[in-house]
């Protein structure tokens, strides 16, 4: 037996402090959680859309990856299908938007037999290099946009469209 025995007064003091502490923590914890929630959200969030394309099947040759999302236009909700040209450069995944920067047609990889390693826009014969750089002398005035892209458990997930970062 130890010598410093706990008196009744001390015991009650410890108990009350302990219980009071739990109650205070119970009130403060949710408040702190609510306060920092926006910070945590942004880390986990980002509107990535999962596609059916396996990362392992990708190569240096761009392939078309289709994906669907819901779009609300005033009172009209519709499922919109869209696509991206996805390829690998080393280990890096790259997804380019298929929307021509000229007037918004859909571009195709190797669509012009004379330029099999370029993106081709059939509307006004606009051409882009593999990294999306517009070729001088064709109508487009800027490079193709890029998608944010992630490897999510072996599948390609596409995020927001951003300006091309590959073209220097």
């Amino acid at each position: 037996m130890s010598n410093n025995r706990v008196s009744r007064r001390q015991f009650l003091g410890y108990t009350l402090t302990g219980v009071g502490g739990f109650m205070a923590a119970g009130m403060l914890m949710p408040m702190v959680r609510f306060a920092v929630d926006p910070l945590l959200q942004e880390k986990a969030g980002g509107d990535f859309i999962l596609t059916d394309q396996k990362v392992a099947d990708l190569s240096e040759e761009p392939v078309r990856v289709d994906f669907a999302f819901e779009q609300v236009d005033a009172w009209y909700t519709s499922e919109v299908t869209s696509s991206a040209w996805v390829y690998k450069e080393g280990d890096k995944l790259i997804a380019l938007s298929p929307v021509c920067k000229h007037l918004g047609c859909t571009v195709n990889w190797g669509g012009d037999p004379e330029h099999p390693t370029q993106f081709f826009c059939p509307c006004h014969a606009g051409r882009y290099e593999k990294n999306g750089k517009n070729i001088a002398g064709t109508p487009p005035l800027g490079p193709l946009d890029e998608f944010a892209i992630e490897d999510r458990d072996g599948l390609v997930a596409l995020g927001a469209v951003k300006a091309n970062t590959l073209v220097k």
Partner: protein
Amino acid sequence: MHFTGRDIDQYIQQQQYVDTAVIPLVQLDLAPNGLKQSASASDYLQSLTNLLEKQFKGRILLFPPVAYSKNGDRSRLAEEMNAEMRNTEFKHVFYITTDAEWRTFEELNNVLWLPAIPTENMDQSFKLSVMEDQLRQVLPLFIKEWSKPS
């Protein structure tokens, strides 16, 4: 481009690039035994033309479907459309329809006739692949028309 206020603003600025009009022709058959088929064909045609617009957004202006009754006078409609189109700067005008009667009309140039495929019972991804197959049959006709020396 679509026939909407916003797209027309862009069309007016870029008229030299947008030189092709696409007009869907939709037959309305409202008899009880024709209703379903007519609706389904109209749905098919609109899906197809929307897909076409997406592919060629910068070169075509997609008009809203022109609807007429089953027994309507098609040659009069054709004349009226031709007259209206003469007000525009379009170099190429395509009519696209699932109504077989247009195949015998000489008044309209570039009528694309397609048999309607009922798509209402297909799931989304299957429908998309069917519609893209259909689109692939139509695209070369446009490319061919555009590559003609004018």
